[in-house]
């Protein structure tokens, strides 16, 4: 069997969009974990909220892309409120943070069920499709790839090139010292949590056109998001990009060759095997080598 150029292009694209999907659903989680050491078990529900806000915006006649941006900002605002009310009391208490955000996730799902009902909603996938040889490819998957690059780039710039980013990294490394040199650690943590939440919201917004928007959609994605973050390690951008590349690649290849069920299984197995040898993830390994 020879591989035709169009087939190759199609495979490459499906590989890239699989990677992009993992990156957009994981980035928000990676910011909270890498920057604050917070494991947000409500991450899946933040994704879900992003999707529902996008849905609401579109139903009220907003342009899809505008609705997506607004949805991300709205989830960011919710993140700030959550940090003020709940998370700030639990810094440094890892199991407590996990359990509390877990409780939050149960509440959020049920609140959305009460508002929207448990049934599935959807947004028609925008844009058309393009033909590559014998294959037709949805243009939206190209958008997804572009959005992943954009969000990773944005995160990189925010964390390394802004005053806030410098303060946020300082507040993570040595909170007391950062406070002593005038960083408002409370405010910085609040902003970081809001930023991470907004990224999660953006991920959810990007999912809205390609998946069934249901209150329970969070747990469909959050497992993969956690695997990506764990394999990526503490480096937010480099970790997410590399882990999404690896796991998304494996998932896509195995799915294309066999079935999507085995693709999911392969992702899990590869992630666990990698952690056996790189216990602090890919970016943790790089950091130690450096």
């Amino acid at each position, binding site marked *: 069997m020879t591989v035709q150029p169009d087939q190759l292009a199609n495979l490459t694209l499906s590989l890239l969009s699989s990677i992009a999907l993992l990156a957009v659903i994981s980035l928000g989680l990676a910011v909270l974990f890498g920057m604050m050491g917070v494991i947000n078990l409500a991450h899946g529900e933040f994704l879900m909220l992003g999707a529902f806000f996008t849905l609401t915006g579109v139903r009220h006649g907003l342009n899809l892309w505008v609705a997506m941006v607004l949805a991300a900002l709205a989830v960011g605002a919710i993140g700030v409120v959550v940090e003020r009310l709940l998370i700030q009391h639990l810094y440094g208490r890892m199991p407590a943070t996990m359990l509390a955000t877990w409780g939050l996730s*149960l509440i959020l799902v*049920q609140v959305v069920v009460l508002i929207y009902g448990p049934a599935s909603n959807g947004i028609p996938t925008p844009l058309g499709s393009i033909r590559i040889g014998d294959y037709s490819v949805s243009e939206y998957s190209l958008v997804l790839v572009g959005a992943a690059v954009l969000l990773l780039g944005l995160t990189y710039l925010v964390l390394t090139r802004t005053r806030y980013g410098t303060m946020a990294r300082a507040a993570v490394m040595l909170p007391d010292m950062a406070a002593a040199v005038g960083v408002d650690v409370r405010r910085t943590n609040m902003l970081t949590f809001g930023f991470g939440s907004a990224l999660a919201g953006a991920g959810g917004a990007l999912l809205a056109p390609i998946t069934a928007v249901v209150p329970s959609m969070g747990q469909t994605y959050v497992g993969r998001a956690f695997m990506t973050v764990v394999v990526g390690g503490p480096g937010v951008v480099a970790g997410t990009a590399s882990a999404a590349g690896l796991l998304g690649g494996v998932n896509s290849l195995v799915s294309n060759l066999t079935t999507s069920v085995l693709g999911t299984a392969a992702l899990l197995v590869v992630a666990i095997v990698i952690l056996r*040898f790189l216990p602090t993830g890919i970016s943790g390994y790089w950091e130690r080598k450096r």
Partner: protein
Amino acid sequence: MMSTNNRTLSGSVAPIWHRLRKHVPVEIPGAVAVTLAGAVLATTVAPFRALDWSLWVIFGLLALSFTFVWGRAGIFSFGQTAFFGIGAYAYGVLGIDLFPQTGETTTALVAAVVIAAVVAATLGYFIFYGNVGDVYVSIITLAFTLVLLTFMSSTADPSYHIGQALLGGYNGIVGVPPLMLPGGGQMVSPNGLLFTCVAVAAFIGFGIHLLLRRPFGRILAGLRENELRTELLGYDVRRYKLVAFTIGGAIAGLAGGLFAAWGTSVNPNVFSLPQAALVPIWVLVGGRRSLLGAFVGVAIVQGVSDALGGGGGSATPIVLGTLLIAVVVLLPEGVLPTLSALARRFVPALGRASVAAGPAGRTGSPLGDSVIDDSVIDDTVIGGESRKATSITAVDVHKRFGGVAALAGASLEVAPNGVHCLIGPNGAGKSTFFNMLAGRYRPTSGTVLLGDEQITLRRPDERARRGIGIKLQVPSLYGELTAFENVWLAAYGAKRDIGEADVRARGALAWLHLSEKARQPAGELSHGERQWLEIGMVMASDPKVVLLDEPTAGMTREETMRVVELIHDLARTATVIVVEHDMEFVRQLGAPVTMFHEGRIFTSGSIEQLRADERVLDIYLGRGTSHAAH
């Protein structure tokens, strides 16, 4: 003939009873009693109630597995739900496939336990032998659960089947046979199921209780309290964690198998987050250390949840979520423990009663009336049939951290017996050298020998088992365990014999003059006493080589004097290496001194010789640094 027998019998009843009490653990009559109570209960309640309560007992087993893994072994695992689900699916599949052949499903239930245990062991191997951090353990187990959810949800296609059992996607496996005992193919009635569940739970619960009373339980407590210390005492912490995790997985799998038999179906919801969230809620309500609390927590939460309108009530997740947050934020110790503490505070009589019923004579001497004199200490702790002191040698050891060379070719041979001091200014490499001997760092190049044996790449626990006793700079004890348990764990790590560990631990406490405080939690001792206790732990482990890193940090002058005596005692049977800043202390030890500078051995000699050496003063005072001797 008859009468003789009778007489013998009656005459020997008392001794037999005595011997039974001595050799049959109290857990067995306990489990039998609970099983009998379960039998009485199962024959009296209505079948629908029996079904309800069976489910509670099954959930109680699941909660128990989490109490064991988290509350006792300190592993915060979300995976209990996963193993529960795996057990349920395994029972479902094997029940459907095997029942037509065998006419019973106990094989399927046993297989469910085995499969869940094997999966737990496999996952645990990758987690614990990869030295993944605690945080990652939680995330990996959670992600594992959720990926299983996704995986099982996408098996709707009829091509996904194992034997006759269709996996069924969201709908799961239907038509799972209920529990059938071998023999008649007789279906177990609801009341019979309740009895079975109570009996199983009783034996598992008391079995865990028995296990925790054994050395294994103490080692798990040590692991939970202070993993590093446990490793330095010669325990392979990875193995103990793996065993605990596997036992927890097996129990959860058993609960899952019973759950599938109870509901005669299984669907991917067993892997869902709301289901997974129930487990810590139960355990937090019942108290996270309490084995019984696991079952009480289930009864309370499920009872309240049923009262709120059954499992399907629309407000239930909100109530559960709020409960979870409230418990975590307001009552981190758990609901029942907090309530019982409150009750004790407000009803003083309760408090007194529980103190009286508590550990006998917390304040009295735990050693009974036996006076331990110095000769006994000499026999059991210091001298005895002790191992021979051994030399320890480092040859051309280098250690680089990124671009920094902390050690640049350090070589040192310390002869058997006696004390040897390592000194040097900050950054000279002595701490790195110490950690290299202790096995906490692996050298970039070079070799470390214990006697004639290469130990360069040995882990700290392997070195400890070969006879290296280590006390780190930062006090590292088991704060919640008693002083006795602290030294006992040290002794057992070296000897692996309960009797001998008891004797050595008592001897070590007597040696430290801490026998009076044997039952106090180590965390409540004074700073100096904690430092001594750690030296006592080193002594109790009967070492050939002792490594002490700044043993007198933060001590008063009198406390330091006592440490000098203790070190001289240690040096009678072991090679002692002390890293120290305090020159006065080094002088009192009167031992040969080796000075580190810039990652190498700079010079060796007596403390007087070094004090007279201009170059040593230069280094300490920072006057010119170009004196590197070789």
